[in-house]
C-alpha cells in the first residue's frame, strides 16, 4: 500500500507553519543531525520548547531520532516527506497558462506575418 501522500504533505505544511519548527528544520538541513541541546544553543528557543517540537516532528516522520555521542539522542532530518511536499508545490507551480498564451500568439503571429508579406514583419515580442 502506498503511504497516504496527502497526509504526508499535510504534516510537512503544518510543521512549516510554525516559526520555531521552521527554524529547527532549517538548522538540521543546514548543519546536519543535532541534539536538542545543540539546537537550543543555536536557536533563540528554550530547550523545553525544542524538545516538544522535536517530539512532534519525530511523530510526524519529519525527523528521526538516533543515538549520538554520550548516549544523547540526535535528530536527523528526513528528506522523503519534504519531497512529497515539493511534489505538491510542483503541481501548483506548473504554469500552462503562460505557454498556452504564447502558443496562441505564435500561431496568430505566423498567420499575420504570412498575410502581410510586404508590410512590417510584426515584431510584437521585442
Amino acid at each position, binding site marked *: *500500500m502506498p503511504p497516504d501522500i496527502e497526509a504526508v504533505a499535510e504534516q510537512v505544511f503544518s510543521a512549516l507553519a510554525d516559526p520555531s519548527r521552521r527554524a529547527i528544520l532549517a538548522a538540521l538541513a543546514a548543519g546536519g543531525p543535532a541534539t536538542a541541546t545543540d539546537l537550543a544553543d543555536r536557536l533563540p528557543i528554550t530547550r523545553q520548547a525544542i524538545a516538544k517540537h522535536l517530539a512532534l516532528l519525530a511523530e510526524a516522520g519529519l525527523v528521526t531520532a538516533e543515538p549520538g555521542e554520550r548516549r544523547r539522542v540526535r535528530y536527523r532530518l528526513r*528528506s*522523503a516527506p519534504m*519531497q512529497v511536499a515539493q511534489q505538491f*508545490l510542483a503541481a501548483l507551480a506548473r504554469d*500552462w497558462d503562460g505557454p*498556452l498564451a504564447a502558443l496562441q500568439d505564435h*500561431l496568430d503571429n505566423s498567420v499575420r506575418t504570412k498575410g502581410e508579406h510586404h508590410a512590417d514583419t510584426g515584431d510584437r515580442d521585442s
Partner: protein
Amino acid sequence: MGFPDRIERTMELAHPPTKVWAAITTAEGLGTWFGNKATIDLRPGGAARMSWTGGHTAEMRVERVEEPTAFGFTWRVDGLPDDDPRRTYVEFTLEPVGAGTRLTVVETGFAQLPEDIYRKSFDGNTQGWRSELGELVDYLDAA
C-alpha cells in the same frame, strides 16, 4: 487538502489541426513559443529537449505520436532532485472545430507515489550521505 494530480486546460485556436500539430511537435515550433530552443525526435521513445535563455532546460521523452490528433510526452517534475525517477505525463489532443482546433493539454502524475520509490528515495538519500561520509571518515582514519 486535495493533492492535485491532474492539470487540464482547453483552448480554441483559430488554426487548423495540422498547423497546431506543427507548432507543438517540431523543434521550430517548440523552440519558438515554449522554449527558446528545442530539439525533438518525433517517435514514441524519442528524446526531446527544450532550453531557455536563462539556462533552464527540460528533457522530454516522446510517448505518443498520432498525427494530427494526439501528442504525449513525459518529463521530470520540476523541483524534485535530478535523480528522482518520478515523471509526469503531458498529453496534447487536437480536435477540429470548424476551421479551427480545440486543443486540450492534460498533465498527470503529480500525486504518484509508489511505496518502493518512497522507500528508495528516503533510504537512498540518507544512507547515501551516511555511507559516503562514513567512507570519508574511514579513509581519513586509515591515513
